[in-house]
């Protein structure tokens, strides 16, 4: 029964900001467990607002968001923290701490959930090996290339084994080669069972990967295709 419940369901979600801007307008969509979904669209189409809503950083002005069939609207502050542990996030600007090395940046995610030192060392080493950064474990983020920094961010997002990975423009600051490598990593993560949602402007990666593509415009879903491509969507 629970296998059939979408891992994420948005039901008539709206979000208006105080300035009167409607960032999301009566949007409904479902994402199944283990899916790989691209969310594309022009600037101001509501993609970043969607990410913030899923992370419960902001509240919708209408509608409900369900995680595994349960509404997240009534979560208390402590429950919000636990809810967020289910979601790993990667940003375009990496959001790494420059006063800490690679290990410490990744370990931060483990530390906040109270993982013991021994387990933390093991988990961080394991995830850094997955993203191919074992040799850079003691390096400072400023000593790494853009691609390496994004892999550190990915390692941090994955180290707590989230069910969902949200990537907001993960290739935005990467050259084509690193962008492709990053998408391959995300694909690998997806194959391991994690639901992956990637917000992007990069048509190359979308076209190449042949995944589900949701096109957004003016806060609405313009199209939703199972094996879509960026090039086909003219908005």
């Amino acid at each position, binding site marked *: 029964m629970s296998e059939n419940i979408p891992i994420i369901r948005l039901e008539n979600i709206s979000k208006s900001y105080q300035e009167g801007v409607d960032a999301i307008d009566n949007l409904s969509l479902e994402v199944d467990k283990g899916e790989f979904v691209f969310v594309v669209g022009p600037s101001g189409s509501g993609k970043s607002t969607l990410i913030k809503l899923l992370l419960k950083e902001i509240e919708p002005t209408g509608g409900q968001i369900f995680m595994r069939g349960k509404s997240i609207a009534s979560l208390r*502050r402590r429950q919000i923290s*636990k809810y967020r542990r289910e979601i790993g996030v990667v940003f375009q600007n990496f959001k790494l*701490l420059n006063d800490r090395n690679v290990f410490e940046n990744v370990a931060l*995610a483990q*530390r*906040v*959930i*109270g993982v*013991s030192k021994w387990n933390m060392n093991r988990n961080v080493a394991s995830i850094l090996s997955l993203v191919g950064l074992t040799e850079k474990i003691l390096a400072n983020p400023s000593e790494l290339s853009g691609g390496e920094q994004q892999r550190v961010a990915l390692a941090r997002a994955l180290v*707590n084994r989230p069910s969902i990975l949200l990537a907001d423009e993960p290739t935005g600051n990467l050259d084509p080669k690193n962008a492709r490598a990053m998408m391959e990593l995300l694909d690998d993560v997806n194959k391991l069972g994690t639901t992956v949602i990637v917000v992007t402007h990069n048509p190359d990666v979308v076209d190449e990967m042949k995944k589900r593509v949701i096109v957004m415009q003016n806060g609405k879903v313009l199209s939703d295709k199972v094996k879509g491509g960026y090039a086909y969507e003219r908005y």
Partner: protein
Amino acid sequence: MKGISVLLYSIKQGIKNLRHNGLFTLASVGTISACLFLFGIFYFIVSNFQYMVKNAETSVGITVFFNENIGDEAIASIGDKIRARGEVSEVIFVSADEAWEKFKGEVFAGREEEIAQTFGDDNPLVDSASYEVYLSDVSEQGALSEYIKSIDGVREVKGSIDAATGLTNVNKLIGYVSAAIIIILLAVSIFLINTTISTGVSVRKEEISIMRLVGATDLFIKMPFIIEGILIGIIGAALPLAVLYFMYGRIVNFVGERFSVLSGILIFLEEGTVFSVLVPICVCLGVGIGYIGSIWTLRRHVRV
């Protein structure tokens, strides 16, 4: 185990914050130190003044005179009734002879021969036996006088209510003034802690946003700042306490030597007595200022 590791991490981060915000930390520690130093000075003054007033109060008594020919038994009975009162600390019987000897000594000092010729063995204060009643709390003097007047066999009660009220009022005034000054200083300290923690929060804004996103609880994010505030408070309390401890004995000696004429009045509290109260108060105030300052700031700046 999990709680301990989170606490250790928070302490480490709190100490790191202190170093990171060096100047603001110094400003906050300095202000709390100044505040608690002044608090300590006021405490010295207030506690010692109260001690001196208390000593003075015990010398402010009530004199109770009896009806003529009342008899020793009735006098003893009056004495028992007075002693039974809770506010009475001491009751001394002064016989008519003792009263006359004391009077002669005070009024006719050096004129003993003249007095002997005039009065011989007569005691002009023959009906002036009395009780000198001392109180543990001088403010109760009015009520006690009224009670004693109502006892059978009591002719007259003489008190020094003005002196008693005056001492009580001065004591209260010093208490109010010091409380007002200390409250203002505490408010300034909390404001400065707020500035320090706000700076810490803005410096670590990025880290806080990352921690929120990876599922850190409210407490986990706030704990290092709370510990930072408490550490500032503890350091801010320890410094003035050390200086005050060093100063106290010297101040007492200085005042004692400088005003040796008043040595009967200027009786100071022992160092141990003062600091057994001052140390816990200052540490609690320091920790309290740090805690309130940081919580107040975090409420406004950090929200999961």
